[in-house]
């Protein structure tokens, strides 16, 4: 395993104080610790209803019968297990920046996983690399957090990746929340969101960009080389170039925001200069 300094002592120290609640509506799935819309057999009271033949007579509220002379049955909350899929972009572009975007991506993924496991939900890590989706085994319970960090540490971004192809390569069967962490340099982001929405996923997009991408400083003539494809583009730095770039970047970010709004997805833009706590607490 490649040594990874992403999850150092400082990270674990801050993580122990980190709490976050990911809201998700559930109606099906394995039993768990998350409140469900369905009525079930948990210890938490939910409602009354009149007794119908066939109901479990152990649930009849005899005190209510004494008062109203009618039979009522107690209903309890059904607690289900939430299913969270975290998709981590593994293209070479995620290695960019003075502080690599992958580092922040992994820390965000770990922090979210920690919170998810804390709520007795299930986390499935997916590593999107070379147009494929590498899916790790689902993890539940806090004791499984080490597996999460191990899996994250083993992920090394490289090469080219098409976000749509790689996500679509996975057949999603269960309802849940899909968290996609990427820089979203793709022309098919809407197709990705559509696909996840079609699979009844609540969608949470976390876009990570470095300061060099947000505010590039280019003076002189450069041959820009794409870290994924190796293709180059010659440009001459000037104030007008910086203006044009800034306007293209703003258009790009606004487009993602509008897509998320359109499909009811959550969206966070993260700067690698910020810590994962700052990013997640918004």
């Amino acid at each position, binding site marked *: 395993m490649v040594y990874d300094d992403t999850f150092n002592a400082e990270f674990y120290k801050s993580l122990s104080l980190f709490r976050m609640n990911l809201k998700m509506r559930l109606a099906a799935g394995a039993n768990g610790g998350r409140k469900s819309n369905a009525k079930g057999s948990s210890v938490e009271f939910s409602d009354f209803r009149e007794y119908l033949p066939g109901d479990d007579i152990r649930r009849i509220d005899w005190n209510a019968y004494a008062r109203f002379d009618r039979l009522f049955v107690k209903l309890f909350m059904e607690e289900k297990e939430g299913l969270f899929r975290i998709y981590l972009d593994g293209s070479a572009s995620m290695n960019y920046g003075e502080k690599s975007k992958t580092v922040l991506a992994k820390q965000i993924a770990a922090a979210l996983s920690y919170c998810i496991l804390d709520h007795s939900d299930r986390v499935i890590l997916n590593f999107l690399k070379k147009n494929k989706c590498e899916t790790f085994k689902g993890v539940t319970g806090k004791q499984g957090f080490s597996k999460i960090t191990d899996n994250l540490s083993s992920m090394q971004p490289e090469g080219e990746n098409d976000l749509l192809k790689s996500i679509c390569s996975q057949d999603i069967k269960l309802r849940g929340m899909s968290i996609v962490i990427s820089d979203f340099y793709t022309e098919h982001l809407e197709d990705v969101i559509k696909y996840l929405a079609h699979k009844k996923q609540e969608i949470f997009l976390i876009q990570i960009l470095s300061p060099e991408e947000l505010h590039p400083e280019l003076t002189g003539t450069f*041959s820009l*080389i794409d*870290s994924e494809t190796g293709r180059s583009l*010659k440009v001459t730095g000037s104030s007008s170039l910086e203006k044009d770039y800034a306007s293209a970047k703003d258009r790009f970010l606004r487009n993602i925001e509008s897509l998320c709004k359109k499909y009811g997805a959550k969206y966070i833009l993260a700067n690698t200069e910020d810590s994962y706590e700052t990013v997640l607490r918004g």
Partner: protein
Amino acid sequence: MRFMHLWPLFLLLLIPAVIIMYLLKQKAVAHSVPSLFLWNEMYRNKESDTPWEKLKKNKLLIIQIITILVLVFCLMSPYTSTENEASSNVVLLIDNSGSMSTELSNNRSRLDYAKNAARELVKTLDDNTAVTVIACSNRTTSLLSGSLDKAAVLSAIESIKPTMLSGNCEGGLALCNGLAAGNDSMKVTVFTDSPTSLGSLTGTIYNFSSPAENLSLDYVSSAQKKGKLTVIACVTNHGIKDVTGDINLYGDNELLDVSSYTLSAGESTIVYFDETGFEGTVIKAELNTEDALLYDNTAYCISSTKKNGRVLLLTSRNIYLKKAIELNANITLHETNDPETFSGEAAEGYDLCIIDGQDMLPELLPQECNLIFIQCDPGRFFELSEDIENIYLTLEDSPYTAGISNYSFGVTSVTPADQPIWAKSFISAGNKTAGFAGDCEGRKIGYIGFDLHSTDLPLDYRFPILIWNLISDLGNSDLLTTSGIYCGDTLRINSSTDDRMPTIIYPDGKKEALNSLPLIFKDTDTPGAYLLDKGDNKIEAFAVNFDTSESRIFSASAVANSAGDNAVVIDAQTASAKSYRPLIIILLLLIMAFEWFVYIKD
């Protein structure tokens, strides 16, 4: 619009050099980006595939090329002439006096610039314009008259050489006045550095006077002091800076002494060289500092070690005359009241014999020395008239009455004379003369027609001055009338009583025999020490110096104020009525400021 210079066009070679530098400079630096996604989105139009396309969009390069073009344009000194050159008759008057040799800029003299300006002017004239070219200093030379041939005009302008002569264009303008009679369309264009008035003439004055750092050695003079030779030299700083330097003193071309001086701007000083011990003839002083005008850095004088003149005064009693003669320290006076003792050859050896009265007239007149007769008739040389009683006489303008002329005094009796053609009158008695002097029969003869006891003239201060001037001239048997003149001046040489003609030896050793009377030497254009060989090893010397009045620097306003109402004065360094150079320089600065702004912005 015309251009003063074309050489700056060579600077256009800078443009390809700058482009090459930009091509070299614009080598792309590899720069990794996570993805070209955003760049491709926005930079399709800004992508440049070839170096030339890069240059097309490079504002700094374009600005720098514009800067070079404007710089070249500026150096070419564009100008437009505002004067009307459509005259059918143009006179070009070019001052070639010594001051025009002052360096104006770039090791080129004012005369060089003047000739260049004249050439440019000729090129603009119509083919039907007749051009007259005159070079002037204190000597006016008409080089070409009314020529329609531009090539000949240009050649005439080119033939004008710098001189060391003094003067300005007055002689040339006098000539122009003659040419302008009956020719109203004639225009005079003067190229000079001195205040010049065109008077009634119409034309343009190109002023080439400009501030310059120049020192002049105004004169050098020597005198015997206790058997030792003392030399003084006068130095003037015509520049605008304080100057410290040295003067080298040479005697017969050997270094005698070196002395220092310090001069503020516009200041003059006298430098002394005491007890040099020099016993030669020619003294030369030289400034060892190079300045704008080199001609005025050297001055010559002739050592005043010659013997005293010997004067014989034949008089019964004339204390006024005796005292007046004795004031001249260069004269040794011998007085007698016995004329026969010095009759004939007995008076030989004297330079001048003064015969005071008819009773002092010897039987035989001295044969070689100069003579002054005071109211006596020698019977030859001149004719006397009848005596006139109680008359007022007047001192006339003459070399002997400089500064004391137009003074009248009474005499009880005067014996006037008809003025001989060889003499110059200095005392008039009505339409006759009562005092004259001149060269006659190879010697100088003077006459005073009244007894000095019968007038109050000796009581006036003018009397000793008159006698001094007479004795200085007639009491000297040298051929030279002066030991120093300025370049271009004419030297009058006394004729000798024998028939031998003297020879002039130039500073460079060239010899020229004078062969006609009166003896006049005019070829004094070159400064230096000249020798006059009288034969029998008798040699006299005289110095020719550069006239340092040419060293003066006149302001543009002085030239403009003296020009006259019909003249347009142009600061001729640009040879143009309106130069665009200042405007272009401002434009250049604005472009450079804009370039800086663009550079900072990018």
